């Protein structure tokens, strides 16, 4: 299922006028297998006051219904621009959904609102080989000589960052698999480069190097992805 399906977003908690209590993360986590599938999920917490989203999907779990009635529940100040949710794995049915259509919904403590309803943006074909490389790394042959195969959070986070680059001015030259990590490698002028590093543990780092051993390494999270990407863009320009 692609994120464009989220144009038809059916929300489970209440109505605009009469919101029912939000579904808590405990409630969502109680959903039993097999309706719950692998993927990234975002959970809503009771009383969260959410702001409009930056293109960022990595901060927590997302739950969505299967079929024609997808659901997204959001936590911690995030909402999801539909064009940026295109590769989430969405698969959970939650009872009590009110059927409404929303694009780029903003969830608030007392309700939600529609920001706009443009059709999904066109596909950025430049991303396809990068995303395909991730699939190859995750599912293809992996020599133990290279360390532990990247998996789980490393793959999903890298995937979300690639999607966040849709239509933008920068793209990684390469997607690399390493020991317990995925690297998005951005090559710049004068031998400079930046690596965005995603570990199986969920940790993320940005490595900026002048190509001669002078470098800066810093941790980051997807909540701050826009500023990280601005920084990458400025460094490799």
């Amino acid at each position: 299922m692609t994120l464009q399906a989220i144009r038809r977003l059916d929300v489970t908690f209440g109505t605009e006028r009469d919101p029912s209590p939000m579904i808590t993360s405990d409630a969502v986590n109680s959903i039993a297998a097999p309706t719950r599938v692998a993927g990234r999920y975002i959970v809503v917490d009771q009383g969260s006051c959410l702001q409009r989203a930056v293109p960022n999907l990595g901060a927590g779990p997302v739950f969505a219904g299967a079929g024609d009635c997808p659901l997204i529940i959001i936590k911690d100040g995030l909402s999801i621009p539909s064009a940026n949710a295109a590769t989430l794995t969405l698969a959970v049915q939650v009872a009590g959904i009110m059927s409404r259509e929303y694009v780029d919904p903003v969830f608030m403590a007392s309700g939600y609102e529609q920001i706009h309803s443009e059709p999904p943006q066109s596909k950025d074909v430049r991303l396809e080989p990068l995303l395909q490389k991730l699939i190859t790394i995750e599912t293809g042959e992996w020599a133990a000589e290279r360390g532990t195969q990247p998996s789980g959070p490393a793959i999903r986070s890298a995937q979300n960052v690639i999607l966040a680059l849709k239509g933008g001015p920068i793209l990684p030259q390469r997607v690399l698999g390493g020991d317990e990590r995925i690297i998005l490698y951005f090559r710049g002028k004068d031998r400079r480069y930046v690596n965005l590093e995603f570990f199986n543990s969920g940790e993320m780092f940005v490595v900026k190097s002048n190509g001669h051993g002078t470098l800066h390494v810093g941790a980051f999270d997807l909540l701050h992805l826009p500023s990280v990407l601005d920084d990458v863009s400025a460094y490799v320009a």
Partner: protein
Amino acid sequence: MRRNGRPVVPEFAPAEDLYRRCHPDAIDTLDDGELRVLSTAFDKGVHALSMQRSAFAQADFVRWDSATDPGNVAGFVPQLWRDWFVVAVRADAVPKTLAPPAGGAEYLFTLRHKPFDDSYAHTEIEVMKGGKLLDKEWQFNNKHVKLIYQTILADKAIVSLKPDQVQP
């Protein structure tokens, strides 16, 4: 290549090369054709990077697994990694110490000549923290320091042999 009773030689000349093989993915061809070594070339066994020193080896030697490495698991079958690159980093490019940006004990890096019976040139870069040798990979668990270390090595490394290239 074989040790043949030769001694450990602890000293490394600053300009001595340390060879290591790496997967082709760890090499990037820049616009001018130059080959850049990426940090994944120094991934596996980062707590004790396995290399061979140029004082006693040619670059091509690192393409063979050692059959006498005491770390080999039972049933290990040595392979020839002909289709991988061989990269080289000078001994004096290996950082001596690195401090965790968040504070705490420094990491100390030391070249150790550790010959095997079938690989006299075998060398490792030992890592110590707070006076303790990190002899398990999981003990080198500060990813921040690890990335700095690997990136420094990568930036200082050059390609010695391309896949299938034989020793000149």
